[in-house]
């Protein structure tokens, strides 16, 4: 493309990425409003305590933090990444000690003003630190010791988050780490072997959890996690040999466990092609879609019910723009660090989007993974926007020639 003028400045920031980010956050705030205002108890709260207002505050905070991070070259930032990584791991240990137990899991540290979810920031710290680690010369990446160190870096936060327990967030590190290693240039054969082994282990573990009778399992995941898996694979909770009474109880429990998914599916499905209109979602208004999750993990159900397939296309379309802008930024990055960093952020976003939307339409088991930029939640909103900021950072300090 011929330059029109030698003085024309290169765009400083990626407008497409900014636009899609802004639109997604706006849609999120709008539908958090729709999801929560149907409850008169919520509507009666002071404005500053209402979910959509709080989300706006978090979003502003996220944008500011992201912008501030853009003032410093990501290469400079990456020097501090290992510190951030170990600090986040420290927080993950801390949360196990002093964390607030909510719904049977220790995932939040109460900071007075708000509850901090360290796992959200651990993801970012990991991506930064891992990108920094992987940006070493290509030859080193072929070394076995480096490979083992890679696995170690992935597994430390995975294990710490897994024991909270937060299976969904823990498992997110695996695809992200894998993509980063792949983009960094770790030999494909090694990665294939890694994926093969991981899949084999995963299949063995799932089979063990599902098919070995509960009382014979020496080690296992939490009951509710196993039940979520059973729901996903549509298996009976009670063994065939159980008494009628036990089977009936098990069916009840299964129906309770699958309640959220069932209601989410009804919400999404009944939205149809064009939806029922803003704030007209019956599933949400009547409370069938549980109030506790409608505005965070199941925000997509609310959007899909009220705006239909058309709205889903818009949301997925905006994510597509966001993700491919990210990949483009990766390819335009000035160095391998930037490329791996961008690819890591894209992989994180993509995994969360796939798991969350997939869970709404029952192609993925239920896990507490928020929808980035859309779901309500301070830590999630903040970390998503910081991640978007990192992408902008890589773009701003791209190669200019």
């Amino acid at each position: 493309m011929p330059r029109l003028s030698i003085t024309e400045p290169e765009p400083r920031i990626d407008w497409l990425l900014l636009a899609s980010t802004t639109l997604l956050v706006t849609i999120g705030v709008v539908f958090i409003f729709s999801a929560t205002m149907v409850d008169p108890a919520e509507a009666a709260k002071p404005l500053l305590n209402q979910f959509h207002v709080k989300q706006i505050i978090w979003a502003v905070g996220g944008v500011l933090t992201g912008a501030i991070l853009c003032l410093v070259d990501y290469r400079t930032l990456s020097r501090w990444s290992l510190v951030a990584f170990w600090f986040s791991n420290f927080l993950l240990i801390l949360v196990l000690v002093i964390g607030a137990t909510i719904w049977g899991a220790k995932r939040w540290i109460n900071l007075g003003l708000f509850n901090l979810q360290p796992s959200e920031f651990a993801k970012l710290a990991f991506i930064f630190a891992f990108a920094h680690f992987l940006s070493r010369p290509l030859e080193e990446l072929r070394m076995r010791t480096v490979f083992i160190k890679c696995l170690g870096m992935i597994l430390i936060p995975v294990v710490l988050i897994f024991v909270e327990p937060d299976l969904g967030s823990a498992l997110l590190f695996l695809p992200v780490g894998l993509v980063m290693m792949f983009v960094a240039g770790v030999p494909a054969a090694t990665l294939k072997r890694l994926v093969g082994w991981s899949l084999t282990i995963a299949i063995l573990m799932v089979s063990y959890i599902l098919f070995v009778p509960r009382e014979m399992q020496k080690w296992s995941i939490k009951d509710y996690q196993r039940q979520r898996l059973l729901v996903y694979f549509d298996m009976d909770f009670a063994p065939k040999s159980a008494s009628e009474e036990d089977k009936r109880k098990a069916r009840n429990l299964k129906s309770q466990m699958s309640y959220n998914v069932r209601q989410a599916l009804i919400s999404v499905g009944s939205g149809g092609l064009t939806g029922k209109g803003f704030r007209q979602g019956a599933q949400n208004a009547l409370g069938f879609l549980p109030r506790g999750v409608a505005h965070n993990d199941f925000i997509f159900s609310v959007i899909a019910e009220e705006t239909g397939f058309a709205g889903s296309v818009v949301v997925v379309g905006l994510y597509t723009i966001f993700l491919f802008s990210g990949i483009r930024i990766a390819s335009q990055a000035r160095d391998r660090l930037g490329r791996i960093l961008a690819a890591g952020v894209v992989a994180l976003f993509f995994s969360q989007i796939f798991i969350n939307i997939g869970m709404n339409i029952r192609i993925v088991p239920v896990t507490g993974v928020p929808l980035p930029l859309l779901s309500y939640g301070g830590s999630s909103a903040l970390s998503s926007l910081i991640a978007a900021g990192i992408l902008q950072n890589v773009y701003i300090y791209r190669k200019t020639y």
Partner: protein
Amino acid sequence: MLIFDQLKKSEPQLRVFSLLVLAGLFTLMAGLWHVQVISAKQYQANLDSQSYRTVRVPAVRGQIFDRNGRVLAANRAGFTVNVYLDDLRHLFRPEFERLRAEREKELGRKLSRSERSPLEPLARFNVINGAAQQVARVIQRPIELDATKVNIHWIRRRALPMPIAEKLTPAEVARFAESPFDHPGVTLDSQLQRHYPHNETAAHVLGYLKTDNGADSDIDSEFDYPLPGLKGGGTGVESVFDRYLQGEPGGKSVLIDHIGYRRNETMDQEPLPGDDLYLTLDLDIQKIAEEELKSKVGRHVRGAVVVMNPRNGDLLAMASLPAFDPNRFPGVSHDYYNFQNSEPRAAFRSRATQNNFQPGSIFKIVVALACLEKGTMKPDEIYHNKGFIQVGRRFDDTARPGPYNFRRAFIKSSNSYFIHHGLEARVRAVIEMGDRFFLGQPTKIPTWQDYAGNFPKLENIRPGKWFDGDTANLCIGQGPIDMTPLQAAIMTSAVSNGGTVFWPRLVERIAPHKSRATRKGRFNPPGKIRGSLNVQPRNLELVLDAMLADVEDSEGTGNLAAVPGMRIGGKTGTAEEKKGGVVIDKKTWFVSFGRYPGEAQPRYVVVVLVESGGSGGKTSAPVAGAIYRRLYERDKPSLQVANPLSLTN
């Protein structure tokens, strides 16, 4: 496209990654398309089924009138105080917390989950009961709520109002309406209630309503809540013509939230009012029949009166005592029901059509016709009654020994005479005559109370199975023979109208409500002929004369039925019920017709049956006489006009 351009020139790893992302997004879109477009209908149906409850709305029930358009069964507003749970629900939680705190303070520790859960229904009950007691103070009527029932309502019918005080009296309605009391969630609702303005009058013919639980009806199965509805219970025209009277229920949809409380409701289909029913009964005559049966026999009489128009088979009155009050249904008390239902009272049984009685001497009408037709009995031939007759066993005669011709034997009801002639004519002749009256066959009266009676069948009359003693017994209306008073009325009508057996008519027409112009009514024409006696007029005349003599002759057994100004013919009967050779009860009969001088055919047939009476002549005939007297009083003004026109007879 702008965002994909870069992929072409980027390095292979990023390209593979891009394809991976693209594939994932495509999977999501395909899944969303499947759920939101292809399966949308199914999920919409799921949503509807979990968020809507359909409620049946009963239609206004058709009224029931007598032949002159006087109301026998109508609807009037009934008032109920209802609690709407959705308006009280915000109080449930605070009450639960209060109970819990109280309990925890008592025990000095936190309650376990299993200890907490029974407090929930208790909290709801406390709130609802609190509202109910406030209502109780206002309307000044004690209200006792059953905690179990309240909980069942909450579980099963949460979206519907819960009645806490039903059938309010006008005073209670006024107290409620005027009180400054304004408790949310409590409202005074009115709904139509069945009302029988004449209480026990014709109760058996009308029947009563019961609460419709919807379990046995097809249309109801379409509704989640078929209630509140009423339908004809048990017997009577309310029940038989229920599908006409009921109209077509409408339906409404109640939108509920995830806990099942009502959000709002919409009427999907307005109910269509039911058809009205016009009976052939005459309310005046019905009342006369019931009053006279009571006044002549006693307040606790058990018996029946059938008044029929012999010219066309119309039923003018069909009384059975004791009777129940249909206004007490539904929701009748156990005590009332059990008392009325106890033997020998059996107030729910229509003694006019739902009880087989031995006819006794009234059957001699049939025997006489059989013998006269056969020609074996000459009316003037003298038979010497010895006071008994020996046919296998000894049959005593209540008529004194002496010479008897037909007329004298009939009015004195001589057993020997009719046994003698019956044997001469042979049993076949008697049974064939009885068959012409359709004895032992149902009358098809549409009240589901239609007893057929009993009558021997010709094919069962075989040597070795049927003996002369059986014939003798049959000739005096005993043995394998039973009739309902309605059958006796049909029999008497056929004799008195010149030999035509009519189907009895109870329902004149079914008339659609005026708002349903396109709906067709149904008319049931009078005088539907069932058969003919086919007897010589001379013989019929002989029997009619003998019946007239039974009443008009001072020696006749039916003499107490005589009414000046009217020509009444009748036959008495006393059927003894024996147990081990001892008489334990007597069913006393009087069958009769009443004719005005100058009219060719009688206007009325009156049949009276009294249980535990003295004799047909002394117990039942006076009832008929009293009824005729009042019928005469009633008809007198019109008779003076009618008489000159029909002086031919």
